[in-house]
């Protein structure tokens, strides 16, 4: 079985400071990893993914994430936070060996608030 943990329900950061949203995962094989962002009353928007290759993945809006296999983590980062980054962030995982139809397991979400 696969699972995702986002240990922080809420993350607050001052505008201009770096931000980190944490994610750890568990799969039996190799993972596909994804980050999504959700603004109020909207669907989830894809930010970035790790499939294979470089452990540091760059995505939309200046976000990046680092895949760490030994720690089974895929933390989302941004060097300088903007107030407009305030939103709900979801990490998701799929085992490469699993059938794609069953699709992703999502974490419970982390509410990011960037304070002006």
């Amino acid at each position, binding site marked *: 079985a696969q699972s995702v943990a986002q240990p922080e329900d809420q993350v607050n950061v001052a505008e201009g400071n770096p931000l980190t949203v944490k994610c750890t995962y568990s799969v039996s094989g190799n993972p596909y990893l994804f980050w*999504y962002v959700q603004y109020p009353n909207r*669907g*989830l928007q*894809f930010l970035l993914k790790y499939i294979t290759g470089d452990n540091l993945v760059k995505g939309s809006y200046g976000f990046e994430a680092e895949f760490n296999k030994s720690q089974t983590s895929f933390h989302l980062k941004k060097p300088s936070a903007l107030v407009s980054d305030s939103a709900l962030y*979801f990490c998701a995982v*799929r085992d490469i060996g699993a059938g794609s*139809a069953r*699709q992703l397991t999502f974490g*419970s979400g982390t509410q990011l608030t960037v304070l002006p």
Partner: protein
Amino acid sequence: SQTIHQWPATLVQPVGSPLSLECTVEGTSNPNLYWYRQAAGRGLQLLFYSVGIGQISSEVPQNLSASRPQDRQFILSSKKLLLSDSGFYLCAWLRDGNSPLHFGNGTRLTVT
């Protein structure tokens, strides 16, 4: 480019009334299609998915059903809504296993 349309955006229905939410995808063929429900603005619950016309897999037993009458159309239905059916319903599509899920803008359903 591919787009996903979901409607209506908001819906208020009385208990016991029927439900029909529609989702269509443009710009791709034979996508995998999904219905999720999000309660209290947090966790996502997979309700149904479909790998082709007429093929529906149910993840959670409840009074909802799904149908896929056409390749790029996915419908979520209920014959009689319950209060507990209130929530934010999201449709999503997938091209292949390496791709991310792409979500519609969701339907906010309130059952009164």
